[in-house]
């Protein structure tokens, strides 16, 4: 019977709501948009979170696949949690959007990561990437920005002669190099670790051409100092890794836990 209540709750929202989306904005919500991944299975992400959250305060997750839509929500509405990349947060802060970091995602104990530009060993310098394809997961802008950072000022001019191929995830990017769909890949270092396990031969063929600066993993941010409701939302988020279902959800976001930032 314990499980019946939340099910009834969601069901009634649907029945009563008719147009659920019109009413949902009054409920506390986690809004999600990540420039660093190219998730294409929002339905399972949303489903996983919503089922978990029904038992943990009745909140919702709303993922976005368009940056503009996500940013519009930030501008229009206060009082929720925003899950976004560190790069995106900095971009928004530059535009004077008053977002503040509340939690930082962790992966195997780390809160930061750096991106690697890797290529086959016959590509020995950046110049050789001219007129080639570089595969990466993430939004177009983000990937450009990371690549620009890795290339550095001296090689920045190369950017216009490099074609970016956006793939769903890091492992696709590094494998694209191995299978000849791209000349180089941008991935998190963990992406290369995965390749080493999955396809050691391909991994051996790759080497790193350059690295980005270290940056936080996924960030949970609020528009102001968290109020009581937001603190509750953050607490639910922080404790997600303590339950199996919650951890599985976090994995879909590419992290395995949260850590508060002082």
């Amino acid at each position: 019977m314990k499980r019946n209540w939340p099910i009834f709750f969601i069901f009634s929202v649907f029945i009563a709501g008719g147009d659920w989306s019109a009413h949902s904005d009054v409920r506390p919500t986690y809004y999600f948009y990540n420039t660093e991944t190219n998730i294409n299975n929002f339905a399972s992400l949303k489903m996983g979170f919503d089922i978990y959250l029904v038992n943990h305060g009745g909140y919702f997750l709303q993922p976005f696949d368009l940056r503009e839509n996500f940013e519009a929500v930030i501008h229009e509405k206060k009082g929720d949690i925003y899950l976004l990349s560190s790069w995106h947060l900095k971009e928004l802060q530059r535009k004077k959007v008053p977002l503040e970091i509340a939690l930082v995602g962790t992966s195997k104990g780390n809160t930061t990561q750096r991106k690697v530009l890797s290529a086959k060993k016959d590509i020995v310098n950046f110049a050789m990437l001219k007129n080639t394809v570089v595969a990466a997961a993430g939004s177009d802008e983000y990937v450009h920005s990371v690549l620009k950072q890795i290339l550095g000022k001296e090689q920045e001019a190369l950017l216009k002669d490099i074609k970016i191929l956006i793939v769903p995830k890091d492992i696709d990017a590094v494998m694209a190099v191995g299978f000849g769909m791209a000349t180089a890949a941008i991935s998190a270092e963990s992406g290369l670790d995965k390749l080493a396990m999955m396809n050691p031969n391909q991994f051996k063929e790759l080497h790193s051409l350059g690295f980005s600066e270290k940056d936080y993993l996924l960030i949970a941010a609020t528009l102001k100092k968290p109020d009581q409701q937001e603190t509750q939302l953050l607490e639910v988020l922080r404790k997600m890794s303590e339950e199996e279902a919650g951890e599985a959800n976090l994995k879909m976001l590419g992290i395995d836990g949260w850590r508060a930032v002082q």
Partner: protein
Amino acid sequence: MKPINFYNVFILLAVFFAGTGFAQSNKILIVNSEKTVFRYEKIATEFKKVLQQNAYSWTEFNLDDHANADADLKQLVQQENPALIYCIGTQAYSLARNVAPNKKLLFSAAINWRRLDVGVGTYGIANELSSAQEMSLLHYFFPTIKTIGLLYSDKFSREYVETIKKDALNSGINIINKSINDAQEISEVLNDLLPQIDMFWIISDPVVLSNKESVRQIFQAAQQQNKPVYAYSDVYIEQGAVLAISADIATIGRQSAGLAMMVDQGKVPAGTVQSPAGSTVTLNKCALDALKLQFNQDALDSVNKIVGCEQ
């Protein structure tokens, strides 16, 4: 006419050809086999997004809008003089190959592209993931699987299956393949095949996957004999497949656009056909537990989506 005069004519012709200097537009013609088919349409949408970002113009031609597609396409090619024709699906490719044999063609979403009549000016993104990639992933996820069985039709998948067999050997996996001519043969052939294998692989063969009934038969037979099913698309997870590694459709569209632009700029070797670069890995934990199948726990974080029994 003396032979020497004939050579003069040749020289004249050659000069004429060299002098004309055909101006090439960077317009791309998109030919879609059937716009109501989700895969085709999704690929077209992503393709256009990338073209737009790169200031390329395009014209679209949907086969299902034209009763006389052959003549209409010919007319359009003549009118638009596209730098490249992007053909989504085999029907689109076949038609374009006939109508505009001298144009650069780029195909995608064509099942087993190796069966196509591919010319010098043909480029493509395969519909299937590189079987070497699939094999290395499968081997990583299920280290104990040694023998995999699959059904296919000779008409549509012969060349693809030959490639699979070669790649499987490199990963230490043995493939047992059985061909059928009609979906009605599925049950009988499966009864013979399933006892010999550790896992059954559903490949994108249009004869094997003729209708829902053939899909049902495959899963029913596999379940009866307690054999896990691995599939090329996550639509089969719901039917009971334990693992699916699908080529990401949107990536195929983007990848095609990238290749199209590179081809237009003459930066790709003739005849390049790439495997899809994006993949989605879906694991059916429910089926995995039911089959008591050994799964490499280290590989869990490479799975995009884990489906449990409650779902």
